[in-house]
């Protein structure tokens, strides 16, 4: 059954993630004010998480969910409110939950994540409310850490007589009772079934012999509880039973169940699960493997091209038809591969409200955060690379952009800042926009800082435009944070963000209006695997240039070339464009007739080429580590006829 049940792991993870997200979302909603619907949702999510984790035998996760559920039950019934402290605690719990789900997804059983701190904090909260419901045998607070010594008796002898609470009892038989000793013996018998009688006056022997005046004083050690003892001693013609704890020490009514023998059991179980064969319905595949498959598909395409050529040469019609069918399969395969790799942005968006909340709370700011377009899809590899830069930008927006509530009020703005993250597909690109209505970027401050850090000279700073000043933000080592907090990283600045985005073949743009706010725009290709290139020929050699960087293709008239300093330039549509000869790469050519105008950010230049062969979608294969990173070349691709050609990387040229 165990291996068969592994098939449910994927389903469990998927549903648990959904419930976890729902939990966090509604906890955040609850922070804005009382919301019965959010409370119901939270309760249900936790309830379901608990049920499912119990079913799968993920004990640690179940324990945490159980404690959360106990707390939320009080909230739901209206007898408690979610204070800020409780909200924070529950969010901390949800973080642990997420780690547990990750662990389970990776094949674990949540036991590697310890939730003691959270569980005890929740229990403390319950205890303070004085309404702790019975929650099974959770270990008592402060859980006994020391293990039983190895030489301790191994059996499950549950009754350690020494530790039992003791009681003194006074049992009085009705004076009119005829056979007082019989009553007393019955009571003694009943009590002996529940514990050990330590001392008794008169003694049992005396009672047995009939020497009994009607009052029995005894001390008993028992773990049955006061009520049980009292009931057992009572009976018809027993006038009264008095009982109190001996030595005045309060007996533990709810005996903390002997340290549950869970730990060793779990430890025993662990090694077993690792080597069990599993039947898995959902797979987690390394993106590099998908890339590999993608490359193989591309190889198929190339070989299909060759086959086609051969078929044409030998004029074999049947083969032509067969190749046509192969072609269809291959392109379908290619499309499928693309689809598999695409995932909605929500994958990373969903965690952001929490980030905004945490940063805002830490900074004492008030922020309304809105997201749009989370359903927009991106290639998985782009998504992976986007996560950190996006996090950084969002933190920046709250940390640096949005002003403190008082400051905002003085500036005539609402106390609550506004941050909006949106995404949409724009032809071949995905555009992600982050807008805030904060203070905007203080250009003067940026310049001053850049000069201080020696990034630019004072003169350059004085004369540079706003855009150029903003560019300074992206220089390595630049950070305007007045103090280093744990929110806006240490030394990691926008330069890292920019580099990350560029490594995804994307661009980043910033607009800012002092006092009104800033807007960051990320332009990303939806996928990195496939690139549209223009194939050009220089000196008999072919090159690929990504279409996304090309703005224009023009005729080249040699006579229009001007020499400026060391370089050459042409005048095209009233613009002076630098000529970028690729002589070093492919050798000199005399027949250059065409100019390919490429643009990087706001800079344009043109590459003279002999002729343009056409346009093609290709997979760009990275250069091997043997060659290493080459500026200006992002990789190579293989064309239909088998020729390997370099693909230019305009961003780094």
């Amino acid at each position, binding site marked *: 059954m*165990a291996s068969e049940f592994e098939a449910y792991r994927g389903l*469990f993870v998927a549903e648990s993630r959904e419930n976890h997200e729902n939990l966090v979302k509604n906890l955040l909603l609850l922070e804005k004010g009382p919301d019965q619907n959010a409370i119901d949702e939270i309760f*249900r999510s936790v309830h379901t998480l608990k*049920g499912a984790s*119990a079913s799968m035998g993920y004990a640690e996760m179940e324990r945490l969910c159980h404690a959360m559920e*106990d707390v939320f039950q009080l909230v739901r019934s209206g007898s408690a409110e979610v204070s800020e402290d409780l909200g924070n605690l529950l969010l901390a719990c949800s973080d642990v939950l997420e780690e547990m789900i990750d662990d389970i997804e990776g094949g674990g059983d949540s036991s590697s994540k310890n939730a003691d701190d959270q569980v005890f904090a929740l229990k403390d909260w319950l205890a303070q409310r004085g309404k702790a419901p019975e929650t099974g045998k959770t270990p008592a607070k402060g859980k006994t850490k020391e293990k039983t010594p190895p030489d301790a008796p191994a059996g499950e002898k549950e009754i350690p007589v020494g530790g039992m609470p003791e009681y003194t009892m006074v049992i009085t038989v009705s004076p009119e009772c005829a056979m007082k000793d*019989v009553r007393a013996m019955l009571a003694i018998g009943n009590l002996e*079934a529940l514990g050990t009688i330590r001392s008794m006056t008169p003694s049992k022997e005396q009672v047995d012999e009939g020497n009994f005046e009607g009052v029995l004083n005894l001390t008993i050690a028992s773990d049955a509880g006061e009520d049980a003892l009292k*009931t057992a001693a009572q009976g018809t013609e027993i006038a009264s039973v008095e009982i109190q704890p001996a030595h005045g020490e309060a007996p533990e009514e709810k*005996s903390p169940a002997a340290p549950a023998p869970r730990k060793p059991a779990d430890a025993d179980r662990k090694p077993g699960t690792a080597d069990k064969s599993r039947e898995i319905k959902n797979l987690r595949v390394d993106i590099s493997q998908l890339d590999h498959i993608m490359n193989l598909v591309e190889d198929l395409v190339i070989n299909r091209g060759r086959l086609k050529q051969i078929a044409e040469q030998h004029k074999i019609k049947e083969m032509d038809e067969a190749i046509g069918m192969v072609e269809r399969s291959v392109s379908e395969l290619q499309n499928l591969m693309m689809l598999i790799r695409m995932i909605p942005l929500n994958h990373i968006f969903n965690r952001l409200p929490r980030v905004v909340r945490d940063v805002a709370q830490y900074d004492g700011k008030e922020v309304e955060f809105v997201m749009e377009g989370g359903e927009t899809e991106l290639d998985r590899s782009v998504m992976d690379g986007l996560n950190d830069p996006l996090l950084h930008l969002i933190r920046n927006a709250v940390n640096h952009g949005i002003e403190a509530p008082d400051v905002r009020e003085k500036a005539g703005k609402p106390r609550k800042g506004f941050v909006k993250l949106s995404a949409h597909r724009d032809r071949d690109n995905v555009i992600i926009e982050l807008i805030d209505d904060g203070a905007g970027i203080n250009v003067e401050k940026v310049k001053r800082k850049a000069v201080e850090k020696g990034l630019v000279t004072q003169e350059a700073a004085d004369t540079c435009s706003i855009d150029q000043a903003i560019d300074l933000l992206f220089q390595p080592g630049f950070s305007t944070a007045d103090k280093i907090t744990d929110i806006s990283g240490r030394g990691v600045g926008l330069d890292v963000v920019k580099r990350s985005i560029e490594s995804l073949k994307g661009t980043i743009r910033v607009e800012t209006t002092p006092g009104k706010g800033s807007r960051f725009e990320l332009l990303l290709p939806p996928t990195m695997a496939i690139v549209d290139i223009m194939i050009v020929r220089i000196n008999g050699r072919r090159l690929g240039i990504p279409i996304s960087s090309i703005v224009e293709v023009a005729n080249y008239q040699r006579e229009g070339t001007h020499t400026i300093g060391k370089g050459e330039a042409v005048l095209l549509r009233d613009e002076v464009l630098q000529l970028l000869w690729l002589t070093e790469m492919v050798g000199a050519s005399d027949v250059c007739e065409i100019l390919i105008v490429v643009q990087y950010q706001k800079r344009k230049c043109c590459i003279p080429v002999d002729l343009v062969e056409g346009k093609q979608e290709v997979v760009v294969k990275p250069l091997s580590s043997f060659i290493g990173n080459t500026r200006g070349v992002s990789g190579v691709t293989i064309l239909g006829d088998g020729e390997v050609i370099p693909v230019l990387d305009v961003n780094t040229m």
Partner: protein
Amino acid sequence: MVKVLTVDDSVFMRTVIRDILSKDPSIEVVGTASNGLEALEKIQELKPDVMTLDIEMPKMNGLEVLKELKKIRPRPKVLMVSSLTSKDAEATTEAISLGADDFMLKPKDIPHVREIGDELIGKVKHLMTLPSFEAPHKSVESGGAADRVVLIGSSAGGPPMLDTLLAALPPTLPAGVVVTQHMPTGFTAALAARFNRIAPFPVKETDNGDIVEARRILLSKAGVHTVISGVIGPGGGKSGRIVHSNAPPMHGVRPAVDKTFESAAHVYGKRCVSVILSGMGNDAGEGAHAIRDAGGVSIICDEKDCLVYGMARSAINKEAVDKVLPLNKIAQEIERVVLQMEG
């Protein structure tokens, strides 16, 4: 073919339940629903014989479904699938009073507990053998403090057997009955309410201080041990009184059958008969031994009728068994033994 509708708001839980039930060739899961409203629609559409019903659900919860169900004919048999919480325990008791036919706990630790699937399948099939729920009308008068007692110990797989056994008890039985069924805290009230419909005389969960009376069935409250204390009636006859003991769990369970059996043997001596039904673990062996030592009669159920035979085997290992009987013969034997006991 038993047609089953599975209702739960968790797709995970629905899948697990559906897959378990689908393993049995005589059960067909004809549909699933994620909330009460959907469930009511599907009942009309699919006419299932049995519905497994979750309690906590959006839009319409399980209890509301039961209220609506009163207006529907034919009504499917309802198996509540409850979570292990004090709140769900209360809700389960209410569900039983609202007409749910049976309940069980959500599958727990399925990878390591093989019997869960069998229990769920067994429950569903068993439901089909139960008469439709009708308001209990029991006019059987209590026989007063009982001078003899029938003790039943039961654990995993036991409740359906108890249905059969309790229903077959003769309404004239001159003995008290104390049933100790392993169950999580909170759920024995629901179980007692359910048995109350089936048994020939009233069934209630034990309270501390209850007197063991003839023609009354007491079900040990979960979370405490049921210990039987001796008490002398006004007429001088010896009888038993329920004492709830907070002693730590024994064999990992509370109530432990051993606690009840041993204390009963002490009080009732040879005027007690014990029965061990299906159950996991070692509980009940020592108790049966004590009963036999005291001169009482120890019966265990035949292995073929038990889902799990651990408890009965613990009695066999202690040579504490007088008779091994098939389930449908036990009630008869109880009556015979009880009637033979000297008054």
